[in-house]
């Protein structure tokens, strides 16, 4: 299956989607964990799911996996409801990897392969040296790679990965993404949850969830939306920081400069002037995190 160009994908062809949630809602009593969410993952694309804690990511994933029923709306996985048979065609790597620390890499693979009634996978050459090592003794990056091999052994058509490179160094992270891309190149659809902005960059498309809803979709620019930030260049960054912080502005340190998310130039000038600080204010592109910060503050205001 050749790789499609899915960078601007807004596929309406529901029959081809590997995962599709339509107006899905889930309530835990009074609490609406997922609120009217629609999303989809197409063959060959890598979709990143972002969101603060409590945004609804895990609940959504559990519904996609069929571990949780929807209160409203429909989940379609590989053309049907997410039942056990279809779950076998998914690959899921949770945050804690799902490997047994007291078993060797080889033994873990054997067990998982048997559980899926698949052929035992062969470790790729650069991992072969670790076959007889207890998983608990392996470095995290290697553990994650082993977990991948295990998840892929039954040739899943969809991959769901929870923070795949969390805690791993930059180089090993790129190697992991090589594997992910190799899969998506063969037509596998991948859904990744992440808190890591470097990882978000690796995705074809991003979904930003907040308070149970999908608030933005698309490229990094789409997700940042019209959030702005102001970089404050000054000689006395410590005083500047203190002054802005005391005034309740969402300010963070950036090297020796100070950044304010969603800042208003006039207001900032006012605060700084009151302290007798001279500074140069420069509007700069915001980051995804700053967008999320603004969203979180917005939620806090309304609650």
């Amino acid at each position, binding site marked *: 299956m050749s790789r499609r160009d899915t960078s601007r994908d807004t596929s309406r062809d529901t029959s081809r989607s590997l995962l599709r949630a339509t107006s899905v809602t889930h309530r835990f009593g009074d609490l609406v964990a997922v609120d009217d969410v629609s999303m989809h993952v197409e063959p060959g694309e890598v979709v990143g799911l972002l*969101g*603060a804690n409590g945004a609804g990511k895990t609940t959504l994933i559990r519904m996609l996996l069929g571990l949780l029923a929807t209160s409203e709306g429909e989940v379609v996985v590989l053309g049907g409801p997410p039942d056990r048979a279809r779950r076998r065609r998914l690959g899921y790597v949770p945050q804690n990897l799902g490997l047994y620390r007291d078993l060797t890499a080889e033994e873990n693979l054997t067990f998982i392969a048997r559980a899926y009634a698949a052929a035992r996978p062969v470790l790729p050459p650069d991992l072969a040296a670790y076959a007889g090592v207890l998983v608990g003794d392996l470095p995290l990056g290697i553990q994650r790679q082993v977990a991948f091999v295990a998840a892929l052994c039954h040739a899943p058509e969809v991959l769901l990965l929870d923070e795949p490179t969390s805690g791993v*160094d930059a180089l090993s992270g790129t190697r992991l993404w*090589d594997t992910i891309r190799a899969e998506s190149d063969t037509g596998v659809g991948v859904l990744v949850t992440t808190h890591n902005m470097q990882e978000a960059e690796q995705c074809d498309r991003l979904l930003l969830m907040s308070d149970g809803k999908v608030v933005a979709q698309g490229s990094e620019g789409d997700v940042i939306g019209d959030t702005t930030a102001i970089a404050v260049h000054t000689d006395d960054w410590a005083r500047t920081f203190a002054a802005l912080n005391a005034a309740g502005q969402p300010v963070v340190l950036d090297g020796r400069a100070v950044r304010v998310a969603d800042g208003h130039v006039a207001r900032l000038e006012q605060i700084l002037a009151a302290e007798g600080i001279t500074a140069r204010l420069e509007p700069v592109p915001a980051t995804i995190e700053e967008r999320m910060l603004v969203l979180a503050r917005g939620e806090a205001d309304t609650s």
Partner: protein
Amino acid sequence: MTFGVRSARVRYGDRTAVDDVSVELDAGSVTAVVGGDGAGKTTLLRALVREVALDGGTVTAPDKDRLGYLPASSGSWAGLTVAQNIDFVGGVFGLAGEALAARRAELLAAAGLTAAVDRPASQLSGGMRRKLGFCMAMVHEPALLVLDEPSTGIDPVSRIDLWRLISETAARGAAVVMSTTYLDEAERAARLLVLDRGRALVQGSYDEVRAGFVGTITRDRAAVRPHWSWRRGRERREYWPDADQPAGQAVVEPDLEDIVVALSLAARNREGAAT
């Protein structure tokens, strides 16, 4: 006072966890120690707080009562409430009564934890728990604050909150050193130190690191020399230490991720060639 380590070396059996690392931690600044799992970040920080003895080199750090530490693990006592956690640490450092209550209120307000003051730590989200750990490390206004992966696995909003708390601490004059796997945090620190398998790959301010970077990085769909390339998004990047890339290759302005990956690759390739 400048704290830090010089030519630090730590061994566990026949494995060298930290190999000849030197770093200076200035008051009023944030230093980020970057690296993946196994790089030696935790060991280095532990050596700094004297929890691990050095096999070589020296450590310059304040005494326990001027040192704040947040370990990589939870950092708070699960069975105690937020307030009780802070009270315990405050008590150990000699705070009591009104002074303790005032300090506690101040810390919780800055961290946004005031609403959760009576909640057991086990019921806090990961991000909130880290912020609590941060408050506990700060109770006694230490001169040196050592944070081990304060933001790993934490949601982005809590991370920004943590970064703000860290910035505040540095603004007040403390020396802060934190380890992280997130390169964007390292970019924002005043100084960064990149560790790779126990050795210092590069250090300095972000500008210094970029200026000191030797060689070029190119991008393309496919790599000319696979051993020197890695994936970034949908394309591959390639490192040319001698800047001898073929004509026509698109050169990029490297960011920190590029630099770190390139230098790690170079280190691995050099080792491979040596054996």
